[in-house]
């Protein structure tokens, strides 16, 4: 999976550079997030701007990141959701769990 990870002040910005986040590559995203948690980086913004398709495994990876961040007194926030991706969060009620921002600037500024 191609991701771009950058420190942006109080939080880490993870840009997912894939068209799909599914059962084939969501494990990689989970591993990348776990590496950050191990380094003590517990405030994450996941930018899904380039992701056109997400399945239940992709959602599961983000839930895993959210739970890990919360357990370490951090947070995982999302931004850049395309309409069909957003509809998946609504279908599974996860839009009530995550803080979701239009763009990365707004998400990063919220920390």
């Amino acid at each position, binding site marked *: 999976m191609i991701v771009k990870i950058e420190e942006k002040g109080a939080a880490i910005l993870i840009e997912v550079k894939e068209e799909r986040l599914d*059962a084939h590559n969501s494990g990689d995203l989970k591993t990348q997030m776990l590496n950050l948690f191990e380094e003590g980086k517990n405030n994450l913004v996941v930018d899904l701007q380039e992701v056109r*398709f997400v*399945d*239940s495994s992709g*959602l599961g990876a983000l*839930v895993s990141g*959210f739970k890990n961040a919360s357990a370490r007194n951090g947070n995982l926030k999302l931004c850049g959701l395309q309409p069909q991706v957003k509809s*998946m969060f609504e279908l599974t009620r996860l839009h009530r769990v995550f803080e979701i921002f239009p763009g990365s600037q707004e998400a990063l500024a919220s920390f």
Partner: protein
Amino acid sequence: MKENIEVDIRVPNQTRYLSLIGKIGEDMARTLRRFKGDREELAYHLNLVLTEAMANAILHANEDDPEREIHITISILDEQLSIKVFDQGQGFDICSLPSPDFKSLDEHGRGVYIIRSLMDRVTYRKMDGGHVLEMVKSLR
């Protein structure tokens, strides 16, 4: 004019083929001129249910064994869409799983809920050498 389509696909039991099969489903939805609903939404939903059903078959029923095979048929006959996913495993009956508890924030269990939400009828049955998951949706 009839608008009947049937495709029959076999791929190795590997998740890297999820995208290929999902896209075939999407493209099929886009060809349905007589479908009166939102074709782009239907395309996304077909991609999704194919991806979810195949991932279950690959990882659970077929135990992630790359030597096994996944067989999928997608048919649109008389405005009824039917997707069948055949596995070669001991079985993973998604129909027997409970609905997810949305408050528990479990990492797993949403795939089956998604399939059930988007399709009209879902059945799982035993057959020679494995099982078949059938998902049906009316396109009227």
